[in-house]
């Protein structure tokens, strides 16, 4: 499975999920083949404009293939498509959802397909 990025408010899988894409604090990136993760601060977080496309570029540079987030805007959507990154959009999530829970629900959903 390709690398999976989950938008996060902190640097751990136990951190809160961030529903924002372009302006999330961190991307927690999981490699399910080795069961490892790393957290990268989102360089687009405080861009004046175009945070979405900038974040997509960052994910592409880090070889991410799948992104799990709350909601993406039209610019980010176009950029994700061009980058060939698969999008899993969960919408407004219940507050208190962790990054790990979001990853699990994505993986469970994939298994059921």
């Amino acid at each position, binding site marked *: 499975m390709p690398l999976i990025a989950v938008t996060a408010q902190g640097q751990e899988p136990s951190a809160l999920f961030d529903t924002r894409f372009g302006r999330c604090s961190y991307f927690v990136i999981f490699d399910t083949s080795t069961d490892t993760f790393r957290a990268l601060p989102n360089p687009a977080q405080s861009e*004046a404009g175009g945070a979405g496309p900038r974040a*997509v570029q960052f994910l592409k540079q880090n070889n991410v293939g799948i992104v799990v987030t709350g909601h993406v805007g039209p*610019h980010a959507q176009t950029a994700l498509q061009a980058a060939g990154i698969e999008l899993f959009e969960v919408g407004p999530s219940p507050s208190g959802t962790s990054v790990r829970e979001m990853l699990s629900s994505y993986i469970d959903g994939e298994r059921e397909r």
Partner: protein
Amino acid sequence: MKPLTITVASGKGGVGKTMVATNLALSAPEHVPTQLVDCDVDEPDAHLFLRPTIIEAKNVEIPVPVVDQALCNGCGSCADFCAFNAISAVGSTALVFPDLCHGCGGCKEICPTGAISEAPNKIGTIEWGLVDLGRPIDFVQGRLDVGSSLSARVIKSTRRIAQDRLLDAAAVRIIDAPPGTSCPVVASVSDSDYSILVAESTPFGLHDLSLVIELVRELNVPFGVVINRDGIGDDRAAAHCRKEQIPILARIPFQRRYADAYAGGILLVDRFSEVARVFHDLWERLLREVER
């Protein structure tokens, strides 16, 4: 030659910029050619009161990049260069987001394969015409397109057209600026001969007045204050002006009937003789201030 240019600004929104600008235009000294330029391009509304006959309109355009996919090798130099993330290199070729572009042309210069050319993208419209409310007033307004953020660009184009339409040094040009203290206000106030800052005497009113005072000082434009809705709040705006030795040019009292008339699109100087006197005195005061 350049007419006397007076810009009506305010830190806070909704304090009466357009009210002051439109009534000021209508009460300008007789026989002085007058022009009203609505630079509040996000939502120009002076036309609601002046009801001009628009005779001509022009699009405001900026050059945005167009990528020749056959020449682009997806190197990403353009994306690295762009400060606005308007061009992205995530796929095999560069991807353009025209609505994020500020039209600087840098991507075209930097592209190593010459894959980028430019095409015009509309960001707004400028309209102009004439007002005939007892006296003729030349009228120019800019309007930013929905979804664009380049207010300052539209304002600069609007002012250029206003300048071309009225060159008479004996004339007056009144600019209705947008609220706030950011780039669009700088674009509206820069190179004015004088600025009228409209304020209301409330805690927020004084806070935002202080900010716009800093701005006009930075721009080296002489200025004075008009206190609108005088009687609401307290005396803090006037006290601040006294302390800073800023002239208070006029006070317009708060009256429910003024608000009623204004909401009906009526120019106050047309309806209320006491307001007409305030504006008459404001003009005398203004001309004295400008001479200094």
